[in-house]
């Protein structure tokens, strides 16, 4: 398991990355934490002649909480997300989910940007970002633009990001209300058999706002608008939750793999979504 030879670049600005991407096109790839890319390179499943390391760009790192808005640089690692007390206070859902990703060593290097940008449906952060209704900031030769996490994913490994663009940051409004990220996996280090992020705000005994998104239950993360519609305005009674769970399961489209067949995954999806809703309601 040895990668084929490549040239290594480590620019110190985003513009530097973009110009390299523009120059080398398809032959170039950016590397963040590397824990998705390097294993694939070692198996020679991808051919990359130019590897552009984002590790040297200071502006891509860091968490800032500005009033109601949270901004996270793409190169912020999962370990840093977990370690940040300020973030844990402002958006505890992030820590809850991050602790369920991979293992300690991988979390030291794995970044939020890498996790959301590579389009692997098994990654946890994309579903989480859809739950949070996050915005992704992309920079390319034509400048910068924003794409909502809920609009970003097109198919497995296909996203709204153009080849010459990089994802620089993520922002989202400071969440309120209850939350949960529930994940079933075979063991630590595994991807989800099924996972779901949920946020619920309750006002006057009624669900004022809600968000439900799924991980690894389709070829993209799935934002469950129908489940949200069912929840919002309701008193979150059992029948409503049941309807919402069914809506979420209906929105899922898992494939069979070593984790199990489709009927099993759909069933677990229902269990997980229900757990997440119940837990979010309890915390709201």
């Amino acid at each position, binding site marked *: 398991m040895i*990668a084929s*030879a490549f040239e290594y670049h480590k620019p110190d600005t985003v513009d530097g990355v973009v110009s390299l991407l523009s120059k080398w096109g398809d032959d170039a790839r950016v590397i963040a934490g590397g824990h998705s890319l390097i294993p694939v390179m*070692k198996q020679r499943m991808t051919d990359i002649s130019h590897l552009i390391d984002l590790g040297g760009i200071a502006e891509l790192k860091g968490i800032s909480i500005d009033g109601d808005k949270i901004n996270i640089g793409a190169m912020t690692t999962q370990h840093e997300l977990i370690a940040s007390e300020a973030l844990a206070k402002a958006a505890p859902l992030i820590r809850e989910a991050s602790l369920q990703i991979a293992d300690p*060593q991988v979390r030291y290097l794995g970044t939020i940007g890498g996790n959301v940008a590579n389009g692997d449906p098994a990654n946890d952060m994309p579903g989480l970002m859809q739950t949070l209704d996050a915005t992704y900031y992309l920079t390319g030769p034509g400048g910068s633009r924003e794409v909502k996490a809920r609009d970003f994913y097109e198919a497995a490994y296909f996203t709204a990001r153009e080849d010459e663009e990089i994802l620089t940051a993520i922002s989202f409004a400071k969440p309120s209300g209850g939350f949960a990220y529930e994940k079933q996996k075979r063991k630590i280090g595994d991807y989800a058999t099924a996972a779901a992020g949920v946020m619920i705000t309750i006002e006057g005994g009624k669900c004022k706002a809600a968000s439900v998104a799924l991980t690894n239950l389709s070829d993209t993360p799935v934002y469950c608008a129908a489940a949200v519609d069912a929840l919002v305005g309701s008193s979150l009674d059992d029948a409503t939750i049941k309807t919402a769970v069914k809506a979420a399961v209906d929105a899922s489209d898992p494939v069979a793999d070593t984790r199990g067949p489709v009927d099993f995954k759909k069933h677990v999806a229902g269990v997980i979504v229900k757990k997440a809703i119940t837990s979010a309601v309890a915390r709201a």
Partner: protein
Amino acid sequence: MGKTHLKMTVNGKEVELLTEPRQLLIHVLREDLNLTGAHIGCESSHCGACTVDMNGMSIKSCTVFAAQAQDAEITTIEGLGSSDGLHVLQEMFKEHHGLQCGYCTPGMITRAHRLLQENSNPTEEEVRFGISGNLCRCTGYQNIVKAILAAAAKMNEVKESA
């Protein structure tokens, strides 16, 4: 695609060598620097046998290109303890039979070392979660967990008496 200069500080010593960018950190450590303590178990970042400390982080050196380690501060198992004695963790692994074939041990101890830097008084659950990136095929972990908890207690004792 020639070789490039790689500078790192490994176990407190500055090293400089020529590497291909695609060379993995684990191979640089083992083959260029003869630090064979960290091992290769799975090559896909699942087993943790290759764990070393890089810039204060436990990392799996089979999934880091040498080029990414430019200017890094690396500690391997060879950098723990000293020539005249075992590190407390090494001692406790021996005391509590926390190893059998020894293959996972360097990565496991290096990881445990970082864990105790970050959490000097962990619960059993925190130890189990904290070493969950390191696989062991021999021990069933029970004595490893015991050894790490014992090492934490010892290290705290020393701290208190200081």
